[in-house]
């Protein structure tokens, strides 16, 4: 078991350890030796250089986009999930199927077609262009609706009889009871946004608007400058640490939510 886990951890360990190494050492080590992993001299130069580069701006934009998309996405998905779980509306199941299927089609599949329209809508190189098309996630609506369905409807019936509006029922009764699903949904949305690649690549042309993953891979592919491997790995490490900081302490919710979409229902 540990052997298997080790195989998957090696690349991450290699990335983190080598990000503290002098750039010129990274590619030139040879032979089977601890040198592959343990830097001969630990240096923070890569991180210092990173802080003085455009990458800081890209990192900030990534945080902003992922943060806003997660918050807004969670609000809209929970509203939709609530309406589809609790309020009696005609054709509810059909509507639900339509919404979930449409949003379960990954953004990557529609990205090329959407870009043709996004140009006309003035979304290129804007935060609106980065955020709006990716806020709502079908699986998150699905899992929040499941969670709302699990709440006894006697609670909402009683509140309705007492004259509470649907908004009040939603905010005061359903949202507090669905906290685990909301945390899981937030994690799914954040990780999806943080790792997103194709859409941020297509909708942004201006390097001043690049998100962090794009900024990194563009530097990697640059034909005009030599690639600074130390810088690459330091940036990669930061991009991994940010979601890990959320994921590791909250993994229980993530696992429940992700797995719940497939099994529980």
């Amino acid at each position, binding site marked *: 078991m540990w052997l298997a886990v080790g195989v998957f*951890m090696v690349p991450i360990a290699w990335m983190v350890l080598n990000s503290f190494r002098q750039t010129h050492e990274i590619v030139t080590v040879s032979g089977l030796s601890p040198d592959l992993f343990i830097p001969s001299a630990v240096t923070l130069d890569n991180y210092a250089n990173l802080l003085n580069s455009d990458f800081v701006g890209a990192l900030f934009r990534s945080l902003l986009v992922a943060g806003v998309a997660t918050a807004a996405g969670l609000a809209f998905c929970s509203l939709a999930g609530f309406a589809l779980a609790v309020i009696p509306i005609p054709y509810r199941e059909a509507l639900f199927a339509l919404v979930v299927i449409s949003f379960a089609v990954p953004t990557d599949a529609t990205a090329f077609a959407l*870009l043709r329209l996004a140009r006309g809508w003035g979304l290129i190189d804007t935060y609106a262009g980065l955020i709006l098309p990716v806020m709502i996630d079908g699986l998150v609506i699905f899992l929040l609706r499941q969670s709302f369905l699990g709440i006894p409807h006697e609670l909402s019936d009683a509140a309705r009889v007492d004259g509470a509006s649907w908004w009040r029922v939603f905010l005061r009764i359903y949202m507090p009871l669905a906290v685990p699903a909301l945390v899981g949904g937030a994690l799914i949305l954040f990780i999806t946004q943080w790792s997103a690649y194709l859409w941020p690549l297509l909708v942004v042309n201006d390097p001043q608007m690049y998100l962090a993953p794009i900024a990194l891979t563009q530097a990697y592919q640059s034909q005009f400058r030599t690639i600074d491997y130390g810088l690459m790995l330091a940036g990669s490490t930061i991009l991994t640490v940010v979601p890990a900081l959320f994921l590791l302490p909250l993994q229980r919710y993530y696992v429940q939510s992700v797995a719940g979409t497939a099994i529980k229902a």
Partner: protein
Amino acid sequence: LAIAIAMLAPAIVALALFKLAPLASALLGSVQHTRFNVVTDSFVGLANYATAFASPDFLNSLGVTLLFTLVVNPVQIAIALGLAVLFTRGLRGSGLARTLMILPVAVPGAVACLIWGLALRPDGSVNALLAGIGVGSQPFLTDASQALPTLVLIASWIGIGYWTVFLVAGLYEIPVQYEEAASVDGAGFRQTFWHVTLPLLRRTLLFVLVADTVANFLLFTPVQVLTKGGPNGSTDVLMYEIYRQSYVLIDPNTALPEIVLLMVVTILVVAVEFRLLSRAGS
């Protein structure tokens, strides 16, 4: 009802603008002839589709995508299933092991590509390792016959941790009594696994298979970052072929039928996925 509409409005508007409109626009565009961004013929029937299907690059990308999907899905699911079984046998430390296996989920795809791209360079760490155990230097991504298998490796490293999460949860859903009863009846581990565990895990496995197929069908990042479809078109998957036709060659007449095909296939697979979900619900 008015309130329900208000609550659903953001989702419905987003659905119309960002999902249905692009699909409709691509469908419409795919039967029109365009030259320098101007529609020169508003209906040419399936002529663009004929052009696309006559294009060797497109046919090659269909073949590459099919081959990649056929190899990578079984590989990922078999390994993820193996890990999930290991993690649920109550071995000491399996909680920690499961936590560590989630870590690759936190690694953005682009980052995973950079790590592997650097490590697999001809003068990189992997070749240094191989030299250490007496294996000669391998070209990996720079060789037409090794590039696609290398992509399978990278995509698997990215995906397996995620799918293991599903399968572990699925295994925990199986009541212990079944497996206990089997072992009381004298069934060995292998018999129990094939005849008890696997059939009971069918629903989860099916979901993972479908979802994994969609994910790999839409594989793009490793190709764009590491191989650009090469060497010699050997890694030119459909997603990258579309990207190239759209933004490098700027040939909408060929790109649009490809985009339509991509969306239609994805929607079909996702519809199957949803049927599996709702059957699980009943």
